[in-house]
């Protein structure tokens, strides 16, 4: 700690802090290109030159790069000294010798660090008369656009891509004034974080290709603080929209969540809100109607119901408010509420959430000195994976336990891959070894890096682990003295756990199976289609006399609805998600979606102030739509209670743009009470072919509707270990027929050594068709 002086202004600094960093924190932004708060100092661009005043007699003032100059007590530096100003101007003049000055046609124009620096620093004229260097651009895939002539060689792209995100397919080629940043050949960037290149690039070399197709100048964008809806991390984002359509999403800093970056699922997944097949019109019995009419019919049919005959399925991807409204409505109608079509997943989420009171933030994960992961983080919470990469980068050990393929495997110092049904046993054995109750050399080896760590972190994927696995992992973390966190399904799984009671999911499912429930309200969920446990629900469709679906995307369930009400997407309304660590974050409405066809719902409208007053003419959100049903049924308390329920475990409703509010002690007490005492016994390996889920970073229910991102999805097929392919004497181009409780599917065989032996690697979509969960044993045969 100390103070130095920047042009007489005292600047406090911490030990080891450089002048640029300390000045930034004190609110003085020293011009820079290659320095980046997350990527650190490099010293290459030389724009951050300051003049260091002599500290001893006889010394002369010297120009120093402030990003590499360590702050010292009493040190005097000047930003305004003539030599320093000249130095910075010369850097601008030098980088502009090759920059094409093509701002009018550049996507970065108006949002360009180089532009800002050039205007801020000068010189305001151009003297260079020589030729400019030019390059060929590359095709880098559907997400990132490449325009190398603009490059100022700050190396931020490779430092992010290789050093920070541990990607290895983007590099710096060549030398001198012809350094080229790109891939060794044309092709999509492979990193799940590639889209960040558009943000770290200080000029228009890497730009957002999806935004480009829907381009508008950034100053014309409507923006608002928002939260990413695509996984449980809840990265803070800033969506930008114009003229009724969403154009892009960029990251927004929140030190408790994501500081600088977001993953490509988060950056490009939002395209689900813009696709043509997004449902925009309400339907009753297959007939397109106004939302108004659909609500009326719904009210009418629900009013005829007997007590206990209505089930409400909430959603892990819908916000707190919508789920609370549904639960409140169910309570008022004496119906049943659960957020989870799948009882096993409900239990896993409840267990995981109850163990997450001390869950580490991404920054804390990144600072761990050893990490143990159970499951594939990349496919479930990509930004958690990026945090783990910082641990790897610092040279600390990563221990990985996994079933399916996991991109982090290549960075694991130790790892063990098992079949899904063996995972629980492995964790329990590790725990025993960790506590010293069992002597096992191999297990001890696996744990060794964590035992010597001072600040270990354990991370699990709740969906992969199931409730027993989550609990076992919690015990292992305790034995290791490690912080524990879980990647949960979707954006609001934690929130739904706060609204659930143990066994809700079982009760709704069983009541439907035994016929007590024959009317179902489904909010933002696809029990008949995607997702584990789908098999049981799909079989029940015919028994339902009434199916009301509210959703913002098209699903199998929405297709089969008697009444369908289209919902606004997260950018078109405000709401709250609770992330994996129990942090409630508000997201604000970004823009009104008023380009949709005029809807009679909005014509001739009810009293001013009604929640369904057209306001800007947008689609209803779940909270409003459900509360309105209650209102029209004469149940005014639905809204009142929903408002209480939604925020019951938080001091106050979180404000969008703020850092968020953590679940209070009562909330965690509720979660502990919700965690089931005894689990259904996990099935033992039966010797058959177990299903193992192969996922990827774009794999999430909403993002599955984002076309550009999905064009990068791995090939659909059934994956099998090469040894098994050989043992089964299968041709490499064989097609296999698989059958499960939900149906049958024909898939092309893909030889994949990242699947364990005696497993069938299947995508989430294929598993949904088959109605199979991870670990289920399936039969298969070669298709005729």
């Amino acid at each position: 700690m100390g103070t130095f002086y920047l042009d007489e202004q005292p600047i406090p600094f911490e030990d080891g802090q450089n002048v640029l960093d300390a000045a930034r924190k004190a609110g003085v932004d020293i011009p820079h290109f290659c320095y980046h708060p997350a990527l650190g100092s490099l010293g290459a661009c030389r724009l951050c030159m300051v003049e260091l005043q002599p500290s001893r007699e006889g010394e002369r003032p010297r120009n120093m790069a402030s990003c590499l100059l360590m702050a010292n007590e009493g040190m005097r530096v000047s930003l305004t000294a003539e030599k320093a100003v000249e130095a910075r101007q010369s850097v601008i003049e030098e980088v502009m010798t090759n920059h094409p000055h093509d701002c009018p046609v550049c996507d970065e124009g108006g949002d360009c660090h180089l532009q800002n620096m050039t205007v801020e620093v000068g010189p305001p004229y151009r003297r260079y008369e020589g030729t400019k260097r030019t390059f060929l651009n590359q095709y880098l895939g559907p997400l990132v656009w490449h325009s190398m002539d603009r490059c100022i060689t700050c190396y931020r792209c490779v430092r992010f891509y290789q050093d920070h995100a541990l990607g290895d397919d983007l590099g710096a080629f060549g030398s001198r004034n012809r350094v080229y940043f790109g891939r060794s050949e044309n092709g999509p960037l492979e990193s799940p974080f590639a889209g960040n290149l558009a943000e770290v690039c200080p000029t228009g070399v890497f730009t957002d290709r999806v935004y480009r197709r829907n381009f508008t100048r950034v100053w014309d964008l409507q923006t608002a603080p928002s939260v990413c809806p695509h996984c449980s991390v809840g990265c803070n984002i800033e969506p930008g929209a114009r003229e009724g359509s969403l154009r892009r999403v960029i990251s927004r800093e929140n030190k408790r969540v994501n500081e600088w970056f977001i993953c490509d699922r988060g950056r490009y997944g939002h395209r689900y809100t813009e696709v043509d097949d997004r449902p925009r019109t309400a339907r009753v019995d297959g007939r397109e109607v106004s939302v108004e009419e659909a609500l009326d019919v719904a009210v009418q049919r629900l009013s005829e119901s007997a007590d206990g005959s209505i089930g409400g399925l909430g959603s892990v991807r819908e916000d707190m408010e919508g789920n609370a409204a549904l639960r409140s409505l169910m309570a008022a109608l004496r119906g049943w509420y659960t957020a989870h079509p799948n009882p096993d997943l409900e239990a896993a989420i409840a267990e995981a959430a109850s163990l997450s009171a001390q869950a580490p933030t991404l920054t804390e994960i990144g600072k761990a000195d050893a990490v143990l992961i159970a499951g594939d983080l990349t496919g479930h919470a990509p930004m958690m994976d990026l945090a783990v990469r910082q641990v790897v980068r610092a040279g600390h050990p990563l221990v990985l336990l996994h079933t399916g393929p996991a991109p982090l495997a290549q960075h694991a110092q130790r790892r063990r891959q098992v079949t899904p049904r063996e995972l629980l046993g492995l964790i329990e054995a590790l725990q025993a070894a960790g506590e010293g109750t069992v002597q096992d050399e191999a297990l001890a080896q696996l744990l060794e890096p964590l035992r010597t760590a001072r600040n270990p972190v354990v991370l699990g994927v709740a969906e992969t682990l199931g409730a027993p696995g989550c609990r076992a992992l919690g015990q292992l973390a305790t034995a290791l003295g490690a912080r524990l966190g879980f990647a949960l399904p979707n954006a609001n799984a934690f929130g739904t756990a706060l609204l659930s009671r143990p066994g809700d999911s079982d009760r709704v499912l069983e009541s439907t199976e035994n016929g007590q429930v024959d009317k179902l309200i489904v909010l933002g969920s696809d029990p008949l289609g995607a997702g584990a446990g789908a098999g049981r629900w799909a079989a029940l469709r015919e028994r339902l006399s009434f199916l009301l679906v509210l959703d913002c995307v098209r699903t199998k369930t929405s297709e089969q609805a008697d009444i369908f009400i289209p919902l606004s997407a997260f950018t078109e309304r405000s709401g709250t998600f609770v992330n994996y660590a129990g942090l409630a974050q508000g997201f604000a409405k970004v823009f009104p979606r008023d380009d949709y066809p005029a809807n009679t719902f909005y014509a001739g409208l009810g009293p001013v102030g009604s929640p369904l007053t057209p306001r800007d003419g947008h689609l209803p959100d779940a909270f409003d739509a459900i509360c309105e049903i209650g209102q029209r049924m004469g149940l005014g308390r639905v809204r009142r209670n929903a408002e209480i329920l939604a925020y019951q475990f938080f001091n106050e409703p979180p404000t969008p743009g703020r850092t968020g509010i953590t679940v209070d002690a009562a909330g965690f007490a509720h979660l502990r009470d919700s965690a089931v005492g005894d689990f259904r016994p996990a099935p033992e390996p039966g010797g058959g072919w177990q299903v193992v889920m192969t996922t990827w970073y774009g794999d999430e229910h909403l993002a599955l509707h984002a076309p550009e991102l999905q064009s990068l999805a791995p090939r659909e097929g059934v994956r099998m270990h090469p040894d098994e392919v050989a043992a089964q004497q299968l041709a490499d181009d064989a097609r296999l027929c698989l059958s499960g409780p939900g149906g049958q599917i024909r898939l092309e065989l893909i030889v994949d050594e990242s699947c364990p032996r005696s497993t069938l690697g299947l995508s989430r979509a294929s598993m949904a068709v088959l109605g199979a969960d991870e670990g289920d044993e399936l039969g298969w045969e070669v298709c005729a």
Partner: protein
Amino acid sequence: MLNEDEKQHLAAHIAHYPEARAGAIYTLQYLQKKYGHLHDKALREASELCGLSVTQLEELVSFYSLLFRRPVGKRVLRVCDSIACHMAGAPALLAEAEQLTGVPLGQPSKDGEMTVLPHVCLGLCDRAPAALFDESAQGPLDSAALAALITSVKNTGGQ
């Protein structure tokens, strides 16, 4: 393709550094000696040995001036054009070399026997204008000596 002995030799070399990537330069030099230049296949072979991606190897190959990513002739003549050799007539020699080979500098001659390249100071300033013919030092060169070097290759080649 590298044979097993070669692979083992390279693996042993790579293993004698604290980090595998330190062995990349030697591996690339070795492969270049074997293949003449570092084609895609060579980079993939190196990638498997050094634990670097093809892109990461390309970063090295494109930086270091003695590594060839594109085909070169069987023999490579590097004519120094730095200051001492420049004063002694290197520009004229390079122009003559283009005439003699019939292709621009850097391209392999049509018979594939020879590539002539300008090169930075070879440490042969006392023999200016100097050149490196594969690994052997040449100089001082005049037009006749240059022509002799280039035609010697033409004569012995021609399969």
